[in-house]
């Protein structure tokens, strides 16, 4: 059942610009570095001995931020597909559980964001190779700094999906998203317990893996809370 629901959700997001945004996010992050390195390459290469590591740190300065924005936009898109056509009513009238409906939306979003993260790794690899940063390409680091922020941002995804599906006025989830962006932009001054800090992979122990584990755990918890609330609510 869940497979079919996911398939129909994938069908629904066709020609809405969602696939384009999935591509644009990672491309935009790398494009900012293209501008950055294009304008002052010599200066940036002087900044450190390990050019690849420095390049990755530059890319990952923007990726958490783009991720939070992407989450806010995609979740709101997902909800407005149903809101605009009064689709929730028709969808829940089908012989499927509300739990499965919610799970399928979440699955599609996770797929899209995962795709974005893989694309980010590919784009940053290609531009890094283009910049000729050195022969020893740190594939593992590239993959790590693309996938870890995604895993650490799962609580934000769960929260945004919850807010987006239960609010009729999509201005509310977008505003929550704007706050998330502001918070993640100033991640370095935030306390460690705030979920918007986690995608930046910063914490007081200096261990990115902790953020990933936090992300997975609290993502699951927030997901369940959101789903239960969605199930208990009346369909508008």
């Amino acid at each position, binding site marked *: 059942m869940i497979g079919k629901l996911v398939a129909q959700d994938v069908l629904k997001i066709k020609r809405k*610009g969602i696939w384009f*945004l999935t591509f*644009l996010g990672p491309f*935009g992050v790398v494009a*900012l570095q293209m*501008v*950055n390195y294009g*304008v002052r390459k010599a200066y940036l290469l002087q900044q450190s001995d390990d050019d690849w590591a420095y390049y990755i740190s530059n890319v990952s300065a*923007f990726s958490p*931020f*783009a991720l939070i*924005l992407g989450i*806010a*936009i*995609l979740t*709101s*898109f997902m909800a*407005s597909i149903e809101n*605009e056509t009064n689709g929730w009513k028709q969808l829940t009238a089908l012989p499927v559980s509300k739990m499965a409906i919610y799970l399928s939306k979440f699955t599609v979003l996770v797929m899209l964001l995962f795709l974005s993260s893989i694309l980010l790794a590919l784009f940053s690899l290609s531009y890094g190779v283009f910049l000729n940063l050195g022969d020893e390409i740190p594939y593992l680091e590239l993959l790590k700094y693309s996938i870890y922020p995604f895993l650490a941002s799962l609580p934000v995804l769960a929260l945004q999906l919850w807010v987006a599906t239960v609010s009729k*006025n*999509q*201005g509310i989830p*977008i*505003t929550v*998203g*704007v*706050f998330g*962006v*502001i918070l993640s*932009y*100033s991640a370095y*001054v935030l306390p460690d317990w705030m979920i918007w800090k986690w995608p930046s992979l910063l914490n007081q122990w200096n261990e990115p893996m902790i953020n990933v584990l936090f992300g997975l755990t609290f993502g699951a918890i927030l997901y369940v809370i959101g789903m239960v609330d969605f199930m208990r609510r009346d369909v508008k």
Partner: protein
Amino acid sequence: MIGILGSEWYKLQKSKAIFLLFAGPIAGLLIGLVVDINLLPGEAINKWHLALLSMNLNYALLFLPLITGVFASMICRYEHQAGGWKQLLAMPVTRGKVFIAKYLLLVTVILGMQILYLGSVFVVGIVHGITDPFPMVIVWKSILGGWIATFPLVALQLGISIMWKSFAAPFAVNVCFTLPAILAINSDRFGPYYPWAQPFSMMYIGGNTEDVFFIPWDQLLTVVGGSFLIFFICGYLYFQRKAV
């Protein structure tokens, strides 16, 4: 015209968008309270400058451009629901007047938000125990300057919000333009010409204080004025031709 403005204001009140007005100043307030201004580097003549600087980075660079888009979508939300455009335009009003009324209301709301932001700057200063005299002139310049710099952004977002029903689409466009501003403000060459970087440049205190605003007049007129004209005219013409 007054009638249209009145009805727009009434719709805005009912849409609870007014609560959004407090979001920005509260965000600024929180940032201002978190950052310990006494630890900031640089010797300033007046500590109020430091308070404003630390809050402006987030507020003017990201929040202000992004939230104008949210307001623009909010203001078109009633019409996008259940054939609202048809009902509105069936009244004895011209499309041009509706567009202008929506625009005027939007900039008024942004002005309200800027004034509230001024209030939160004041609160942050009080909490941090700043005893220096409040630099009224400079702060007003920054608040009003930032407001004027949002004019072109508001015009573009209003046009896009009229075009698309969904909230997420105009927001996505807004984000695509706002993010490069982070890089643009660091560049002497591109910064002055990028409309989305202007709110930050206008609110940034430390420019030439002799001028009326913190950026030169010709930059204000060409970049802010020019992009305002382009976006406003495009949005206006688009709305004239839009099929409802």
